[in-house]
């Protein structure tokens, strides 16, 4: 027998208590430490930092622990924390050309100044499950070499001398860079805001969109000009000091995609670029971002807009997984009231449908009798 329900509050409390116990799992198994997550699930931590838009390894690792390994939930935790932090300014642009490189590859040149550096990568591993990892054991220490000291300029800058590759648009100090988190996104969005949106966008979503451009939905003829992974210095210009002071270092993955371009009414034949930049090591995300960035430049370059990946309202409005998961999962909330009004409507329409069918049947019987 239904009585106007009470007890929702206690049910919620108990559900959360159960969640806490489930998160811990079997108490006979040692508890996972935040340091272990930070060290051994480092790429998960990278993803949470990138899509959470906050570079803090410990916080991201803690969020992963709290979220039971659900990375989108962890990203959400980081975002909700980030939004409460006070904002005292923005850093100087980081110089990725001066990056401390741990990995750097180019698919367009066999060798180039600074060389190809493979670094830690899953590429060329055979994806065979390594059963020896079932037990703990020592690992072989990595091989080391002294740094060459040779500079590794970005590939795009190597080609730009000939005018073969488009020049990066000049940056003016007057034109402030937009801030997606402080102003609601309006369309059409300029490239600064588009890149911000993609940088915090869902990796899986960007991957699928990027893949669609390769399969012909807005083809961009891409080559990996360069992918580089490593640490860069972050500097902050403090008015009271009068110079830029170093704040610390962040690990970044940068991808410059070089795209063949036959030219259009607006632009001469040349190579154009798509750009990807992500916290931590995530080549998949940086490459996807670069492909989607290039696809979104279709209008600027005078290309036909035919594919989803070229449609900025579509791409940018649905890239945020915190928004997407919230809205999809809100369908779990009660909808009794709306459903009730639809029930009433469908019942009425069905009754009318039945009445019409009966009337038709009577008319037909009568006609047959006549």
């Amino acid at each position, binding site marked *: 027998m239904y009585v106007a329900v009470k007890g929702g509050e206690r049910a919620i409390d108990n559900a959360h208590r159960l969640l806490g116990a489930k998160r811990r799992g079997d108490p006979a198994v040692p508890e996972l430490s935040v340091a272990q997550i930070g060290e051994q699930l480092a790429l998960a931590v990278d993803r949470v930092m990138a899509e959470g838009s906050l570079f803090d390894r410990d916080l991201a690792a803690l969020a992963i622990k709290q979220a039971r390994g659900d990375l989108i939930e962890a990203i959400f935790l980081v975002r909700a924390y980030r*939004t409460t932090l006070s904002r005292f300014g923005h850093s100087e642009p980081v110089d990725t050309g001066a990056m401390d490189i741990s990995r750097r590859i180019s698919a367009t040149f066999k060798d180039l100044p600074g060389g190809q550096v493979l670094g830690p990568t899953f590429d060329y591993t055979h994806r065979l499950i390594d059963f020896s990892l079932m037990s703990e054991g020592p690992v072989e220490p990595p091989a080391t070499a002294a740094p060459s000291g040779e500079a590794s300029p970005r590939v795009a800058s190597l080609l730009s001398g000939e005018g073969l590759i488009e020049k990066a648009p000049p940056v003016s100090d007057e034109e402030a860079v937009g801030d997606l988190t402080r102003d*609601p996104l309006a369309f059409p969005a300029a490239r600064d805001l588009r890149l911000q949106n993609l940088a915090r966008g869902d990796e899986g979503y960007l991957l699928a969109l990027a893949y669609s451009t390769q399969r012909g939905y807005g083809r961009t003829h891409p080559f990996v000009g360069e992918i580089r992974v490593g640490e860069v210095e972050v500097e902050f210009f403090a008015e009271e000091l009068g110079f830029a002071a170093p704040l610390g270092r962040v690990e970044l993955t940068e991808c410059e995609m070089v795209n063949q371009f036959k030219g259009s009414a607006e632009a001469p034949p040349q190579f154009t670029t798509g750009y990807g930049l992500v916290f931590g090591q995530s080549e998949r995300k940086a490459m996807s971002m670069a492909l989607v960035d290039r696809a979104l430049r279709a209008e600027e370059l005078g290309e036909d807009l035919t594919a989803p990946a070229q449609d900025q309202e579509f791409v940018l409005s649905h890239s945020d997984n915190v928004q997407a998961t919230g809205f999809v999962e809100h369908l779990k909330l009660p909808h009794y009231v709306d459903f009730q009004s639809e029930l009433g409507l469908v019942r009425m329409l069905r009754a009318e449908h039945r009445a019409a069918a009966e009337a038709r049947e009577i008319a037909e019987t009568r006609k047959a009798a006549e």
Partner: protein
Amino acid sequence: MSQATGYNFAYLDEQTKRMIRRAILKAIAIPGYQTPFASREMPMPYGWGTGGVQVTAAILGPDDVLKVIDQGSDDTTNAVSIRKFFEKTAGVATTTRTAEATIIQTRHRIPETSLGAHQVLVYQVPIPEPLRFLEPRETETRKMHALAEYGLMHVKLYEDIARHGHIATTYAYPVKVAGRYLMDPSPTPKFDNPKMHRSPALQLFGAGREKRIYAVPPYTEVVSLDFDDHPFEINRFDRPCALCGAGDVYLDEVILDDGGRRMFVCSDTDYCEARRAEGHRGEMSGQAPAIGAAP
């Protein structure tokens, strides 16, 4: 109720509240217009009331009395969660009684008890754009609002009539505010639409994920779209509430067994309880435990 440490009153920092208040003032100045605002990530998911929560947080003062309802009920899980959030972060008094509240945050219903000029009704809005399902592009719908070009909606309603004999929109039924802007009343059943018209209470609408705030100032014209030969009608129920006997209210259908037995009860639980406390009885109220008994 102890307040959460480390957070500002009502969670949001004062700068953010100021930004939201500016958007609210603009929204009130242009009734029915969707004002963009820099919506923040909140500690609850998008789509679960973040817009309403931000509006409430921005207008809430220490002396306010807050009521939170979802589907008309104070005790649905999300209403409980949001009420607790403000108890924890603002330490304000909360109530379930409509008449006692100064701010009522709601999802999908307007209380049955008429609201007064001292009250603010804050709606949680999932999709603020009434034209969204007719035109998915924001660039287009903004143009349509700017030109007051609402023919598309009339065509949609006309096609409903041509196809079904009725307007087949039962909730989120479009309204025109102050003779100018087409507005989505949020997914309230159309039963509640007439309550918005010339309401003495200020009505604020917050859509967090879509980053929009809109408003209906007190005593503003809110007209549900219709045609001369197909006037707007509210949903009607062919029986009164089984617990309190109220006949002019919105009812929830509760399935009692797998043999098709069901009962209809007030969706507004506070209204139902108040009526029963006054001695009103419905056909099944004899079988119900007294108010306040353990569930």
